[in-house]
């Protein structure tokens, strides 16, 4: 019986392998082609349509970093993503813990959770116009602060929601023992709850960084030139007059690489954030 079963599994694998390989090709080829094109000399772009270029060049990266202010934009992206991640983890983790340990009426908790889910998914286009006006009024248009503030509005509620679902699974007994021994709220939070919550915090940080790094709509609404983040820069390369292929592909590669690294090495943490609400636990 067991033998037959094994054979069946092997046969299944033989059918599966070609299908999966074909899918992998569909998934990976565009990435490969993007990276290759970012090293393709400008003159070859229309002349040589082979997949691989005849020679490789770093011209496009040089162009992005010297003439296109690439370094500033890369720095903007890192500053925004870093600041947003740190602040949202602190504020959101505190809120998530408070919600789990609060004795608010159940209805109030439900309303709060609904609001957190709502902010994660509502059409962000609705706050684009007001924020444009507010930033304009306070002279914050085209500053990284404008982008950071808008991203925080998105990520703080998200981290609170993620950490709330995480803390619900952390047993309360340990904290009770500590409370009996006289440890106060802060002490228990810092020395008992936080160390137990590192997987949750890792998930929340990676997913927050992912959201902020990739975010386009809000960042594009409040930046013009000097505070643009990389996704906004990318969209700018596609103009009505034409496409600046070389710099575009080089910048796109810069945006893609960190997230691909996250996805390959820290996938389970990233996925937990993405699936929050879609799958239990």
């Amino acid at each position: 019986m067991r033998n037959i079963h094994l054979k069946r599994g092997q046969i299944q694998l033989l059918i599966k392998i070609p299908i999966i390989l074909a899918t992998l090709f569909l998934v990976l080829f565009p990435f490969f082609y993007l990276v290759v094109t970012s090293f393709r000399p400008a003159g070859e772009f229309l002349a040589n349509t082979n997949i691989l270029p005849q020679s490789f060049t770093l011209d496009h990266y040089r162009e992005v970093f010297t003439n296109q202010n690439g370094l500033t934009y890369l720095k903007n992206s890192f500053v925004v993503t870093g600041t947003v991640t740190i602040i949202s983890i602190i504020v959101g983790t505190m809120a998530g813990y408070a919600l789990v340990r609060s004795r608010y009426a159940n209805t109030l908790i439900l309303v709060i959770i609904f609001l957190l889910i709502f902010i994660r998914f509502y059409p962000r286009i609705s706050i684009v116009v007001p924020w444009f006006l507010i930033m304009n009024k306070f002279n914050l248009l085209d500053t990284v602060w404008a982008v950071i503030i808008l991203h925080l509005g998105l990520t703080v509620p998200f981290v609170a929601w993620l950490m709330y679902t995480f803390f619900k699974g952390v047993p309360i007994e340990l904290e009770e023992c500590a409370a009996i021994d006289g440890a106060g709220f802060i002490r228990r939070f810092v020395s008992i709850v936080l160390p137990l919550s590192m997987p949750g915090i890792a998930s929340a940080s990676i997913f927050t960084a992912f959201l902020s790094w990739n975010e386009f709509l809000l960042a594009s609404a409040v930046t013009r030139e000097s505070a643009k983040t990389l996704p906004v820069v990318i969209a700018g390369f596609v103009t009505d007059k034409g496409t600046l292929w070389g710099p575009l592909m080089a910048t796109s590669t810069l945006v893609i690489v960190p997230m691909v690294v996250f996805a390959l090495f820290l996938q389970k943490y990233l996925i937990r954030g993405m699936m929050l609400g879609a799958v239990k636990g």
Partner: protein
Amino acid sequence: MNKLLHKKNSPKRSTNLFQHERKWVNLFLLPAIIFILLIQAGPLLYSFYISFQDWVFISSSTPQGFIGLTNFQNAFSDPAFVESIQFTVFLTVFTVPLQLLFGTFLAFMASGRSPFLQVSRALLVLPMVVAPVAIGTLWRLMFNDTAGPINNHLLSFFNISGPLWLGDPFWAKIAIVIIEIWQWTPFVFIVISSAITLVSQELLQAAQVDGASRWQIFYKIELPLLAPAFFLVILFRTLESLLTLDSILSLTRGGPGSSTVNLTYSIYNKGLREFDLGTASAQSWMFMSVATVLIFLIFRFNMRMEKKI
């Protein structure tokens, strides 16, 4: 779960535990509440106010007075808005079912413990983690009608001379359908994959012993058990499909003409290109009411699943 744990404690102990803590709990919540009120609630109310105002930002930097529901009525006499709704619905109708089909198929194909399958599962997720803006430019390259590999290598291999893709209103729409499927099938794939691992192996083996065919097992056992996951995936994908913007903006810029402008894009143009703030706000509130229904369903379904477990 939390509630259960509280019940287990003697009432005295937990009141003691919590009485000192109310102020700490509130203090811990305070920063998040301030962030949400300032960054989300305030501007949303402001946008609600603007939606009843006559306000074109280019001609005046202050609202020109209350005009009742005029903006909401104007929204529908704006052909760009109506057209964008049609395209948004088109996009959702053609992408979500295909994402569901391909994602589920792949989840079953790639389930298993062999190292090859594990590595494949990790790689299949990649399109989903990349900025949609970059996905748009990446496929702008793939679809390029003179130099792109789709026309040059894939279609010419089958002796088909490829269409103009992004230069043709019909094919530009198809191109967007293709990239949306390419980017988001992985989402369906991982959700269904993890739901499959939760289906009890004993149950499947028992059915196998009883002589059920693979198809019967799928249809009679796995599919019903996966139903909740399917339902949530459909809700998620429908909602996010309605909200698509970045990938369209960098793939076609809404063109050719306005053939690939969707709802978010047309509101974006109305507000930040034409600066007709009143109409844009009214349109975004109409959009929001539809989205809210979907978000509420997601919320309800989450809570129900939580209670069951």
